[in-house]
């Protein structure tokens, strides 16, 4: 573990320069890699909440000057006076000092201007003074040495910086969220969508069904409520089709390289989009008859209307991406053949195998037992001839379970019952979806766990459940449920749908398939953030790589894979560039401090999109959440604090 020479991170000063001692990063709860790619050691990290110096020989004065230069010249938006002029003055002052033309009074100027930057409109320039001030205050002798012309420390090999924001960092696709929100604030919906599409090509989807982890890292929540980041994305996406506009993207000239993408889900579509933009010829194959993968057949239309999903896919196809449906890897075509026919392969095959509940009778082949929630949802979505009976039990507490109970209602069931072994509070499903289900008269049986299927004449007539009690919190922080002995009873029903999770189905990976490794959770192993498997030229991402996760994780994988694949295709090597590397370094470090004192007054409520209310809505698949009026979206966007910040490492 790396040793820290000096740290002011989080306003907590740890200084081992004189004592000669040191503290390791872990003890300071700092997650900073001590190497940068294969280019060298990390000397120091400068960022919004201080500096962390790992290498004693780091020239912090030169680094401060370089940091401020990059903030001013590459990132400062110039849209407020203190930021535009103040960071320029700081840049010039620091540069003057480093050039040996400084005076001691310059250090006072830095303090004065830094103070003035507290009036900035956003946090970009405001936070940029934090590391600089820390150097002035804690490395003053180094400054004075420069001013006296005595400085001799070696220059860093390189500096690498990254613009981030807490929301943007937390988003698995790293969308430039403050940018797209600001465009909405400025009534520039097309530009907003353009900013989104730099990282995410299925905005209609992620504007609707993203679990929006970004909103958990929204600094606005520290003064009142988080910004409706996801809904604003929908507003930008909807604006385009609601005005019959054509997307502006144009693919680069053809490179002559051919790529096959397996799976037209979020990961595959995303990967195809960014590769197509680079000019590669991309073909997608998918086992289903329509695009979207789990989004198409696992998310009901009342949450994600499929025409909009198809539109996103059509836009991707319009860049020259061919999509062939009804082709399943392992059944209709082998990986070996794909590897031979194409210059690169992306596996985005999802996670379509339901986890077993492990209860008596589930393998007995009873009528009235569904192989799993994802199967049930898919059968309904594809219009397969299945009949949903009057009384349905769904087992599980995640989004799929919630989707199943609500779809069952729409398919004509009268009693739709969700059985979950913990309480409502522990449900992994989004709370608003649980509320929605309740509003539609879904019945909940909490702290119940199935133990046995009850069948008559080979047909399910009920589920025996045991009452559970919550014990101590487990590693995930959730209290683990324990069965109460002797509390078993039977809930009668006509159909049982287990919805306790899905695994990837990697049967297509035969032993001869190039040494691609699997995890013990039967997901594909990829290396070093490039999304490349152990087989050169074969990449993987999304649920098949991570295990069943979210749309936005799949999008993040798809984009990262496309970037690495582009380098693989054009340079023969899949590697991370500086942007990827810094994205990971900053992400590892974390850009959100839930205990930060923002210092402003809040009181502005989060805006919500209108919604169809009442149980009546559970009779059809019309979209429940209605479009947020644009004026309301602008008002919501105005709440954004634009929490940009810049992190920089020196490489020695």
């Amino acid at each position, binding site marked *: 573990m790396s040793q820290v020479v000096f740290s002011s991170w989080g306003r907590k000063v740890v200084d081992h320069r004189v004592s000669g001692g040191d503290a390791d990063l872990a003890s300071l709860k700092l997650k900073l890699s001590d190497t940068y790619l294969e280019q060298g050691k990390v000397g120091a990290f400068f960022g919004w909440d201080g500096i962390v110096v790992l290498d004693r020989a780091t020239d912090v004065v030169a680094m401060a000057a370089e940091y401020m230069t990059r903030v001013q010249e*590459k990132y400062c938006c110039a849209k407020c*006076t*203190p930021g*535009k002029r103040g960071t320029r003055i700081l840049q010039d002052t620091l540069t003057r000092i480093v050039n040996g033309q400084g005076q001691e009074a310059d250090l006072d100027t830095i303090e004065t201007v830094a103070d003035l930057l507290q*009036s900035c409109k956003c946090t970009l320039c405001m936070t940029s003074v934090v590391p600089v001030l820390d150097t002035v205050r804690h490395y003053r002798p180094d400054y004075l040495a420069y001013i006296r012309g005595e400085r001799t420390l070696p220059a860093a090999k390189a500096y690498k910086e990254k613009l981030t924001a807490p929301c943007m960092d937390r988003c698995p696709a790293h969308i430039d969220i403050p940018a797209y929100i600001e465009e909405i604030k400025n009534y520039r919906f097309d530009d907003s969508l353009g900013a989104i599409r730099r990282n995410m090509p299925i905005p209609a989807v992620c504007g609707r069904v993203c679990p929006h982890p970004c909103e958990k890292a929204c600094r606005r929540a520290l003064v009142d409520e988080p910004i409706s980041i996801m809904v604003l994305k929908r507003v930008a996406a909807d604006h385009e089709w609601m005005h019959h506009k054509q997307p502006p993207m144009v693919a680069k000239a053809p490179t002559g390289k051919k790529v096959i993408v397996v799976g037209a889900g979020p990961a595959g579509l995303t990967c195809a989009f960014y590769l197509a933009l680079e000019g590669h010829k991309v073909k997608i194959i998918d086992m289903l008859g329509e695009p979207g993968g789990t989004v198409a057949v696992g998310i009901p239309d009342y949450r994600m209307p499929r025409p909009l999903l198809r539109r996103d896919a059509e836009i991707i196809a319009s860049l020259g991406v061919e999509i062939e449906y009804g082709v399943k890897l392992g059944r209709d075509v082998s990986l070996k053949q794909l590897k031979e026919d194409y210059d690169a392969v992306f596996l985005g095959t999802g996670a379509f195998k339901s986890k077993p509940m492990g209860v008596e009778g589930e393998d007995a082949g009873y009528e009235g037992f569904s192989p799993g929630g994802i199967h049930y949802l898919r059968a309904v979505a594809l219009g397969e001839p299945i009949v949903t009976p009057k009384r349905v039990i769904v087992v599980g507490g995640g989004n799929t379970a919630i989707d199943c109970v609500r779809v069952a209602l729409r398919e004509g069931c009268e009693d739709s019952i969700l059985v979950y072994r913990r309480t409502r509070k522990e449900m992994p499903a989004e709370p608003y979806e649980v509320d929605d289900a309740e509003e539609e008269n879904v019945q909940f049986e909490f702290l119940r766990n199935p133990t046995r299927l009850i069948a008559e004449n080979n047909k399910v007539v009920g589920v025996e459940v045991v009452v559970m009690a919550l014990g101590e919190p487990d590693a995930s922080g959730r209290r683990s449920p324990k069965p109460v002995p002797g509390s078993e009873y039977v809930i009668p029903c006509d159909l049982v749908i287990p919805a306790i999770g899905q695994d990837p189905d990697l049967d297509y990976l035969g032993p001869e398939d190039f040494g691609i490794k699997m995890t013990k959770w039967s997901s594909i192993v990829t290396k070093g953030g490039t999304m490349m498997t152990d087989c050169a030229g074969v990449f993987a991402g999304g649920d098949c790589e991570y295990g069943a996760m979210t749309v936005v994780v799949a999008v993040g994988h798809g984009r990262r894979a496309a970037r690495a694949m582009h380098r693989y295709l054009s340079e023969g090597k899949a590697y991370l560039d500086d942007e990827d590397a810094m994205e990971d370094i900053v992400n590892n470090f974390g850009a959100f401090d839930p205990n930060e004192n923002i210092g402003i007054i809040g009181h502005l409520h989060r805006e919500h999109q209108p919604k169809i209310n009442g149980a009546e809505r559970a009779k059809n698949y019309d979209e429940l959440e209605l479009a947020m009026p644009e004026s309301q979206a602008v008002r919501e966007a105005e709440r954004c604090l634009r929490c940009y910040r810049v992190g920089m490492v020196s490489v020695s």
Partner: protein
Amino acid sequence: MITLKINGQTVQIEKGATILAAAEKTGIRIPTLCYLKKVSPTGACRICVVDVKGAEKPMASCHTPAEEGMEVTTESPRLRKIRKQVIELLLVNHPLDCPVCDAAGECELQNICYEHDVTAQPFVAEDVNAATITGWPLIEQVPNRCVMCEKCVKVCHEVVGADALCVNLKGDRAFIDKNLAKCEFCGNCVQVCPTGTMISKPFKFQARGWELTKVASTCTSCGSQCQIDLNVKNNRLFRVTSDEGTINDGNLCFNGFFGSDYVHSSLRLTAPLLKSGNRQRSVDWDEALNAAATALQSGKVAGIAGNRLTNEEAFLFQHLFRQGLGCNDFDSESRFGIQRAYDLLQTHFGMQGGTAGLGRIANAAAVLVIGADPTAEAPAVDWLTQQACRKNDGKMIVVNARTVKLSQYANVPMTCRPGSEGIVAGALARLILDQGLADSGWLAANVANLEELRAALAGVNIDQAADACGVSRELLEEAADHLGRAPSVAIVLGGDIYRESQFSGTIGAILNLALISGALQGEVGGLYPIGAGANSQGLLKMGVSSDLLPGGQKASISGRDLGEILAAIENGEVRTLFVAGANPLAFPESGRWQKALAQLDSLIVQDCLASELTDMAQIVLPGVTFVEKSGTVTSSAHKLSPLAAAIDPVGSARPDQQILADLLARIAPAAVLDPEQLAAEVARCSVISAPFPILRVAPMPLAEPLPSPVLLAGKDLYYAAATNSASAASHVVVPGGYIAINPIDAAGLSVKDGEKLRVTSKQGILEGPVQVLATVPVGVCFVPYNCADVNVQAILPSFGSNTETVALSKA
């Protein structure tokens, strides 16, 4: 309402208002620099910071909403220090060229420095400002004077919707840049600039702000009639400005801001002229007036008036003919334009023109812009439509034979075949009715012959209509859904409608759609015919028409209308023609007019600018521009506005009212009106008539659109009025006339931008340079009106259409 305290004073204000608004209400002044009420808050300058109890950091009052119980302090040593230092930052590398800066004396940065006692410059930084941008037409940008308030960017994007300006580059190098292709040269960026960054080239170095006298008046570039200030000195108009808070909220268009430079054009007529032989000579007024009076009393006389006349002049013009000469053979240039809508509105709805008050458009829940390009025909309507649909969540439907600027903001942009707007309107009405979205209760209570409409609409086949107009059924359905569901609807119709060959059916279909969609219900939205000239509405209300009485009602006996006047000149029944403020050589079939006018014994032209027409005249009476005369004008939305004579007439030109009064005194002394009498007549004629209590459905016979290729004539913003031909600014932006065609057609004809194209119609041949534009559909060629060098009227059929099937070839 919420209650808060500012500097200890209690203030109540509506929820959502900013601290700045609350302070303003209490009379507490918070200094600002980047704040502009009509655009979204920017929060750039940080000068308006205040302290709010509970917040450690100062808050920008311009974009922090006031809250119940909030305690705000607007003055403290800390705030004063922040403001002063922020201003000091603004002054870093700001040039000390105030003495020669165009904004001197009107500079908000100067004022704020003065107010905050900023006398020193403690901060220094390298000067990385971009160089002055001198390459843009009409507007110059001086980056080192910029305070990056973004007012220009925001007004350009949020109000005008041109979206030409942007912030380019990062950090201190950032400057305001422009996408020239999108610029409308409205000058609003110049107007809102707090410093001398965005400056008007024509105004640069011409006058100091403080020397100018601002005279409140009314813009007469179009029928919207924006409120303006004429900035004058020494009998010269230097610039036109407008203040926030006016009906146009300080916004001006190209013609308002730059276009009035024709006032001092070298083409101005400065002395009366009489023709003897083939030569015109300057004469004194008595000689000219006597000659004109004699000619007018020759018996075979007719008159044509243009919409540049004021209400008073218009009244006198018809008074001269009716009372002085006992003649009803006079008409206005609205005959083949707006009067067609006026007549049908009066016949069926009892309305003399459109709905009163343009402001009602801004809050409409849906706006249908059909056969109109408000950007060129009535820019204020363009801005209001955008306000309704971009800021207030309204739905915009644009139906046009071309892609116009508003199309980009439309929820449903429909490009229909030229002349098929009526078919679109009929289909929309049918769909709204079919889907049960019409207010049947209101229709039953307010429409007399609803069954006739139902029967007419029953004959509309949507699929056939979609085919005929070249628009998909889905778009028609979507548009109908928006219009049908909207609680308030505004319908804007323009020049393409009145000039369709089957205009009465088309206008009828739109009137009926107005009934079905609810545009005539309630206090929001309405029916807005636009595209008329400056005072067309006033002329019609004053009775300057062969078939309208003073007051605008239909006359029982009508005289010769424009077409009949032309025929009468041709057959010798009219030997003297008095043209005031109009130009028949810019009427359809201009060639026929040219020949006819040459046959006259006396052509008397009263106008302010020399033209081909004045060259032909036997008698030229030099009138004045709107800057040199007083009187009133009436907007297309019925607002009566005053003109102020801000400068003396140029040369020996005289106000048109005086010329007309002098002629009247010579011809019929008994009919002379004193100023009070004239004012009373104008007031009487200007009363807005109430619509019929029961409205009548209009007949809507619709014709198939013309076969391609079709010539389509329309307005170009830079040649919106005849006066643009004498505007240097117009020529800077668009050097002359052009023929616009689609890139596909250009490729087919093997013509490139700037090359000559020949357009042949039954009436004649027109040649002009090609502009290749994707906004013009395949099979259409667009030519703007009012360009003397490419006079589209020469090949258009008389008295009717703006469309004609033509043949195109490379010239």
